[in-house]
């Protein structure tokens, strides 16, 4: 009988993970963490997270790449920056969460049907294509790609109220110079290693 081990030994960890994350924008201070827990206690979302922010930082520091990247915590961060302004070690925790989200997408280990990354990707896609977001189309994309499409029926009364007060329309918003945006985004893609 094989008995699975419950802890990770040093050789099971990814020793390059910390350096990999530290190379990303605003993640250089991560080493300074003293595990005080100010971030977790400040976070309005920590009660809903699978692992509190402090643990995520400890994981990154110690090479628990898979655990950090597969956590729901990074997606539940609503970017309110409370932890970031309170961190005594001046770690830009919200920006670290952003970096981990991008890394999780890059390594394809993110929950691809989970509503939050779906919304993020859908909104980015709309903006890259049209230059402007259209609220109604964003919500449609969110329901079709993640949430139950029939759930939209429950949203109908609110949608009607918003339309009646002129706060939602069916129109697709767009910038005039889409060509410029497209050439800019293409140029950026080419030069990025």
């Amino acid at each position: 009988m094989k008995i699975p081990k419950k802890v990770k030994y040093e050789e099971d960890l990814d020793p390059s993970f910390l350096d990999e994350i530290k190379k990303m924008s605003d993640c250089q201070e991560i080493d300074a963490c003293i595990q005080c827990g100010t971030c977790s206690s400040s976070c309005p979302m920590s009660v809903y997270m699978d692992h509190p922010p402090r643990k995520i930082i400890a994981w990154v520091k110690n090479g628990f790449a898979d655990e950090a990247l597969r956590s729901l915590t990074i997606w539940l961060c609503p970017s309110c920056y409370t932890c970031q302004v309170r961190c005594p070690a001046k770690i830009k925790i919200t920006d670290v969460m952003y970096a981990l989200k991008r890394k999780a997408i890059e390594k394809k280990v993110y929950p691809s049907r989970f509503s939050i990354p779906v919304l993020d990707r859908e909104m980015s896609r709309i903006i890259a294509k049209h230059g402007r977001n259209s609220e109604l189309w964003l919500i449609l994309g969110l329901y079709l790609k993640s949430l139950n499409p029939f759930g939209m029926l429950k949203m109908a009364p609110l949608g009607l109220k918003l339309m009646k007060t002129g706060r939602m329309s069916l129109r697709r918003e767009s910038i005039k110079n889409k060509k410029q945006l497209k050439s800019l985004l293409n140029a950026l893609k080419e030069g990025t290693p």
Partner: protein
Amino acid sequence: MNGYIYYPGCSLKGNSRPYEESILPLFKEVGLPLEEMDDWNCCGATAYFSVDDTMAAAICGRNLSIAEKTGKNIIAPCAGCYLTLKKSNKFLNSRQPKAAKILKDLKNAGCEYQGTIDVKHPLEVLYKDIGPQAIKAMVRNSLSGLKVACYYGCQLVRPYTDFDDPDYPTSLDILMEAAGAKAVDFAAKTRCCGGSLSGTIEEVGLRLNYILLKEAKRKGADLVVTICPLCQFNLEITQTKIVKRFGEDVRMPILYFSQLLGLALGIPREELGFKRSIIPLRSLWEKLGQGGAQ
């Protein structure tokens, strides 16, 4: 830099039209008429930074470049736009190799950016450039009798703002008192409304907004004043469900600070977007009818 150029972002053209409809006449009234930026693109908000930070900074760079050509600093009323443009501006001016590459690509696409633009929020401009004393002197219909909970939310005061405190800001309270209202001691003033969570995980969104409304009610506020489209939207649209879910009547109007300041400065009620409120405003007009008469 002379004057400001107005960056609406997606919200002020969509669900927060009352914000646009009140901020434009308000700024005209205080002598700073705003012109909309030509062919602006969306800021990308929290979404683009979660997916691709190079693209996120670049699309903001395009907006900064358009502003630079006009020689005017940006006014961004949406806290999300404000933060995202400020964050990207800081990054593009950081001289990091990655930033230099983005600036080069921007230049090649006809969006050269020298880094001379500053991004401001209308609250900051009213509080710093105009000042509460001057606002007080301009008040024609005092908001006396009205008790307001001033809600700053997160992204205006954190982490880049230098005009107010990140945990306990007071600029909006001071302006509201200058307009004659009473600002209650709203302990949750910078607690997060959840942003897009009320759309993605409704149960969590309801709880976060319930906490805010409950605190406003407990402090005796008649309404909540907001400075951010997403805060306004969340606090307003979750109310019916909150009453059902938590069995507590925490309903109250949620208005933009520009609507109330506009009212105080004598701009007609019909021109400030009040008709777009989903929550009935009867209680507000009753309160002002009693207290507003001079």
